[in-house]
């Protein structure tokens, strides 16, 4: 099911004008921000398809920058996000691309972001109604919606890794709703994506980081619908 619940149909609460070009773009920006673990120093944003053609009129640029500032989809500051980003010390450069990324949805953005010496690359598609699909992270072809708390675990391809990881999740009473294991080559590097039913103890992330052969663990939790 692409749309999982009633609030993916009625909702989100958002700043207009387009759920795909504005709200979806905010959410892609927020996933990138959470991947980086804080405000990036620099973001190069590549726009494809309809994002490239109409970003100015839809405020897609404001929305992506607002997402990188960690604004929610209905934050009135989105209108001023480019100025606010500059004030906060983030450089944002937009690159509208004439050629689409092959096989991807017409509304796609690819962000290359830098923070504290690390570079992250992420591509997301806005599939309608503010819903998104993250399709690429650091060269791995993956897929998740960010509707659920999501663990991104970068590790080496070793026997028994999945068992070690899921054992920790079991210890913290975390239920897996979706999981994908994507490796670059046999015995090479792997990205495992795990969507959890709800946000559990952040201690899980610490425990996962301590496992052998694990390089990095990122926790993407947008926390929408949890605000007062």
């Amino acid at each position: 099911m692409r749309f999982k619940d009633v609030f993916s149909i009625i909702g989100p609460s958002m700043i207009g004008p387009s759920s795909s070009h504005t709200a979806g773009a905010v959410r892609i920006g927020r996933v990138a921000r959470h991947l980086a673990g804080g405000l990036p120093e620099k973001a190069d944003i590549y726009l494809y398809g309809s994002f490239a053609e109409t970003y100015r009129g839809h405020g897609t640029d404001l929305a992506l920058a607002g997402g990188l500032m960690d604004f929610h989809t209905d934050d009135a500051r989105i209108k001023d996000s480019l100025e606010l980003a500059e004030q906060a010390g983030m450089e944002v450069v937009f690159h509208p691309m004439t050629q689409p990324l092959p096989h991807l949805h017409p509304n796609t953005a690819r962000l290359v972001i830098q923070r504290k010496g690390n570079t992250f690359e992420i591509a997301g598609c806005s599939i309608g109604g503010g819903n998104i699909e993250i399709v690429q992270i650091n060269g791995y072809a993956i897929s998740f919606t960010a509707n659920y708390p999501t663990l991104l675990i970068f590790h080496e391809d070793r026997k028994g890794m999945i068992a070690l990881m899921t054992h920790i999740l079991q210890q913290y009473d975390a239920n897996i709703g979706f999981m994908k294991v994507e490796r670059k080559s046999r015995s090479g590097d792997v990205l495992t994506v795990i969507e959890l039913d709800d946000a559990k103890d952040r201690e899980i992330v610490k425990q996962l980081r301590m496992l052998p052969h694990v390089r990095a663990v990122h926790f993407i939790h947008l926390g929408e619908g949890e605000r007062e």
Partner: protein
Amino acid sequence: MRFQSLQQLKELCESERVTMAELMITEQMHESAQPRAAIVKQMSDYYQVMKEAVHKGIHEPVKSRSGLTGGDAKRVHDYMSGGASSLDEAACRALAYALSVSEVNASMGRIIATPTAGSCGIIPGVFVSSQQRFGWSDEHMVNGLFTAGAIGYVIANSSFVSGAEGGCQAEVGSAIGMAAGALTELRGGSPEQALHAVGLALKNCLGLICDPVAGLVEIPCIVRNGFGAVTALAAADMALAGVRSVIPSDEVIGVMLQVGRAMPSQYRETAQGGLAQTPTGQKLAKQWSSPEGEQEG
């Protein structure tokens, strides 16, 4: 969710003797593992945002970000208040309110996507005007939003709800079907009647292309929201009067999928065809589409 089709939704409601709204709330509690109060609270908050947007466009008319549109909701509302409209006041109010929310959206104001921002005027237009006419409580309206959500959930997963994927029929059409079915239930119609309302409404939208001028959610999106609200009222009236959708609503949704897939890409939000490519559409696009000079390979 225990239902994937509108027929399954109807049968579950009949066998459990509950409304579609009640069934949707129960299913949402199960899916999200959240208590009823939290779910209802979120939907109530959304209804308040809808009411604020209705009010804003009528009483503080807004210009769109591009400057191309704005003020039409107030024009229609003033005209209606003068007593001259051909539509009766209830229908004309739905029209004005739907325009209002869509104009607020185009001005980068706050709205609720129902199911998308491009179609955000239709449900508030129908709901807020009907609430005034029938004196319904907010609680009743919030129930109606769950009904609309249940219908939209089926349409979105069986077909599509974005203009980029399936044309305007998918976007504005889905909203009209959701509003029509929900209004039918709000007025005391059975789940079966609500399904007929959805089918009747969707049939009237099949084939509608998405051809926004300059790619903006303004021309013709805003007026289509206004028309859409009136169509939803008409579909609910037909269903409550006993008119049946001879082709079942699930099959109509299947047709929408088929037509959307066959639709050339220039009619799916790319602004490469239709109204967007008329001489006037092109002229306006030159002023407002993203500048060519910045494009990279």
